[in-house]
């Protein structure tokens, strides 16, 4: 569904990504792992057109999307839930969700999507008229994901959804991600929380200093000595 080939990108001439390649298949959960500063967010921002790569290719459903502006991504079916959630803090929760379907013109579709989301997240419905900034971290993350879902994406990109959440909430979040994947949605998830993520990811890449150093299925990487070394401290 999405293939990134030999991608190089950076900020204002500072190269961050060197030769990064990864691939995600339709209907799967792909995890991009790596320590803080490895370039995971930079990779995702390149995919959605926030950063213009210096070289390499990004192919989505057979077409290059490398020079596509960010605002056109939702029309292609790509939604990203950015790191740090980036909600519209001074808007109500309901308005945040409606903004998620800004490009969906059919009002009835929007309404039914909204009801669907309220069904999955009853907590959000309770808070629909509250300003988004007044929600707790976990609730905000749920709203951010829900906002992403409102555009009816085919590919959902999640950048560190567990960041700043209590362990119990993290588990709920991961369960939820599995659940939406089962509805047919393809997912790219970036996490520092590698061991938990590998439990449910179909395929994963381990990144370091702007390139991928390891790849494999979730269980393969869980067994990998290097991963054990880095993430479990086992040698």
């Amino acid at each position, binding site marked *: 569904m999405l293939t990134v080939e030999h991608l190089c990108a950076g900020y204002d001439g500072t190269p961050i990504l060197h030769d990064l390649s990864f691939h995600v298949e339709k209907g799967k959960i792909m995890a991009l792992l790596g320590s803080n500063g490895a370039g995971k967010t930079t990779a995702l921002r390149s995919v959605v057109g*926030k950063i213009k790569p210096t070289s390499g290719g990004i192919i989505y459903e057979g077409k290059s999307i490398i020079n596509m502006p*960010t*605002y056109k991504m*939702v*029309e292609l079916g790509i939604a990203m839930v950015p790191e740090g959630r*980036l909600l*519209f803090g001074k*808007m109500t929760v309901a308005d945040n969700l409606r903004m998620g379907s800004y*490009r969906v013109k059919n009002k009835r579709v929007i309404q039914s999507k909204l009801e669907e989301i309220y069904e999955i997240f009853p907590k959000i419905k309770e808070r629909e008229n509250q300003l988004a900034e007044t929600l707790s971290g976990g609730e905000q993350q749920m709203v951010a994901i829900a906002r992403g879902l*409102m555009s009816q994406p085919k590919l959902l990109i999640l950048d560190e959804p567990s960041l700043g959440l209590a362990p119990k909430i993290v588990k709920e979040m991961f369960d939820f991600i599995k659940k939406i994947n089962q509805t047919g949605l393809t997912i790219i998830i970036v996490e520092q929380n590698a061991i938990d993520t590998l439990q449910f990811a179909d395929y994963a890449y381990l990144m370091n200093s702007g390139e991928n150093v390891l790849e494999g299925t979730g269980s393969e990487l869980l067994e990998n000595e290097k991963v054990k070394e880095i993430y479990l401290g086992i040698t």
Partner: protein
Amino acid sequence: MIIQCIFEGIVIGSILALISMGIALIWGVMNVLSFSQGEFLMIGMYLTFFFNKNLGLDPIISIPFTAVIMFALGVLVYKTLIRKALKGPILSQRLITFALSMVLVNGMLMLVTSEFRTIPKVIFTGTVDFGFLVISKEKLVPLMVSVLVTGALFLFMNKTNIGKAIRATSLNKDAEELVGIDTEFSYMLAFGIASAIAGTAGCVLSYYYYITPTVGTSFLLFGLIAVALGGFGSIFGAYIGGLLMGIVDVFAGVYFNTAFKYVAVCALFMLVVSFRPKGLFGK
């Protein structure tokens, strides 16, 4: 007398509020200081004058035409100047609207001279006398129109999809593109709307005010201070700031003299800055 002054202050303040809301809108959405807002008001006045002289339209009737022309002018200014300046250094972004304002004022001085003009005859004239307050209908018109325009702006920004998109742009540029909003489109609309509002302010101001190329300058200064009083980000704060400015303006003019207006308004601003650096409504 005090009640009369408050009324007069609210009338002029409601015009200032239209200028300051435009400045706040543009600042909030794209971090550009619109020094040309006063000149958009001035051009709106000349358009009104033109429509009146050549087609016999009352300023009220010409509001939709003036607003549409000013919206188009705002969009054009955005596309040809602001959009380009935003790609440059911050100082260019600040100076560009200032340069535009200079060109508009002095260009108009060359074109139509500094001669004061007025609209000779308007539909609503006469006064309503309450004893403690005499309301001239020529002033009631700007006040009512300002209230209507402000109400319409609030409805647009809070209830319509496009208005919410513009707010989303001002709230978070990163997230806004991810949900499919084109930032440049929001910028263009915001600039066009602010310009149309200033033009509308010009229409109704010409109901009782003289028309001359430099008329916008003092409105801009007061409008800018109104925005700063309100705390810069918020359109609502800018509106209240505008009303407040109008009242201070009239009181200072009546109880002292016209020169003192500027002292009063600027002193008020300095006081607010020293005691509430983020403005009256800033947090």
